[in-house]
């Protein structure tokens, strides 16, 4: 099967019913995508498929045939320079243990594409599918708000 991963073509021989999460981590070395609950509740495994945020623990890898997948590794620039949003997470102390961070970044990335100047409620709604056990969310929300233009 073939799909695009962070802008590069990928061609793989895998059983299509495996979870996209597992293929990303085990076969493609993209360990930025985390497994939290494995049940669609926590959002740690969030990735983008054709620009939309989904839980990769709920996607069969065969379902991304021909599609465009972005993981957290795809947010930084070509030479690894962090995006504004990633910078903001660091500056605001929005990551502690970091398990939720890749998913938070991707969900927030989609929000900022759709809404250039979101308010706190927009951010809360956009991140409602991403749970964080550490930060109490305030710093995450501030980090995202700081990227509004």
């Amino acid at each position, binding site marked *: 099967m073939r799909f695009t991963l962070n802008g590069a073509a990928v061609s793989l021989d895998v*059983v*299509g*019913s*495996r*979870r996209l999460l597992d293929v990303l981590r085990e076969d493609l070395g993209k360990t930025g995508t985390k497994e939290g609950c*494995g*049940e*669609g509740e926590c*959002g740690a495994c*969030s990735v983008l498929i054709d620009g*939309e*945020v*989904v*839980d990769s*623990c*709920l*996607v*069969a890898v*065969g*379902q991304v*045939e021909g599609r465009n997948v972005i993981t957290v590794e795809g947010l930084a620039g070509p030479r690894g320079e962090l995006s504004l949003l990633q910078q903001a997470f660091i500056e605001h102390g929005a990551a502690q243990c970091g398990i939720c961070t890749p998913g938070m970044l991707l*969900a927030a990335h*989609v929000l900022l594409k759709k809404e250039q100047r979101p308010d706190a409620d927009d951010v809360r709604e*956009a991140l*409602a*599918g*991403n749970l964080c056990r550490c930060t109490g969310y305030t710093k995450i929300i501030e980090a995202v708000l700081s990227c509004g233009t």
Partner: protein
Amino acid sequence: MRDVTYLRPGNVRDAVQLYRTTPGCRPLAGGTDLMVMLHAGTLRPAPRAVLDLWSLPELKGVRRANDVLEIGAAEPYTGIIGSRDAQESVPALVAAARTIGAAQIQNRGTLGGNLANASPAGDTLPVLLAYDAVVVTDRRSIPIDEFFVGYRKTALADDELITAVRLPLGRDVVFRKVGTRAAQAISKVVLAVSREPARIAIGSVAEIPLRARRAEVALERNDIAGAVAAVADDIRPIDDVRSTAAYRRQVTQNVLRELLDAFARG
């Protein structure tokens, strides 16, 4: 899951053919119900193949045709929420879709999955009942009223696929969901009500999403107090935990009263 074959048909005809001829085959749409169970190995009988419907063009889209709105079985909630036709013609369904999970779930979850899963707590199901929706399959049309036949059992044949859902235009339906999914064991109740014709559909209060027939008869006579009283007898909340059943009756009555009063005020 490595031993589960992945099948990707190109059209509905091939999908039905594969479904019929592949032993242990299970349809897969957005995967928000199925993938967890597949991974955990809790499905009985254990599926030997999944039949991917997600990318079938025939199962996508929201279309207005004559006097109905047709929604593809594999169209995700996000597509329904974003459809102007759906917003105009079936706002109660849009409201229900908005309450289903967060963005990650709305981007994948589908009506076909919600229907086939037939959970008494499926949030779109009371709304579909209140609209008198028609479940379209690869071979026939099933009135939603005849679709749920028992706890998580549907009228679908073993090799039958849902292709679309049809809803009438111009019916005024209101939707209310009380309690969160996490709390559903104790407090969740979902109601959808149409005044004309009188339809009162309720989720999470019986083994199937059901229509409250006695309450509907009262509502037809404009007897709001009668409808609120009757609904307590229409529903069958789980009574292995007595207090919970009583609590649910009370909540159902309160929410129904509130919805009918809102209608009365216009």
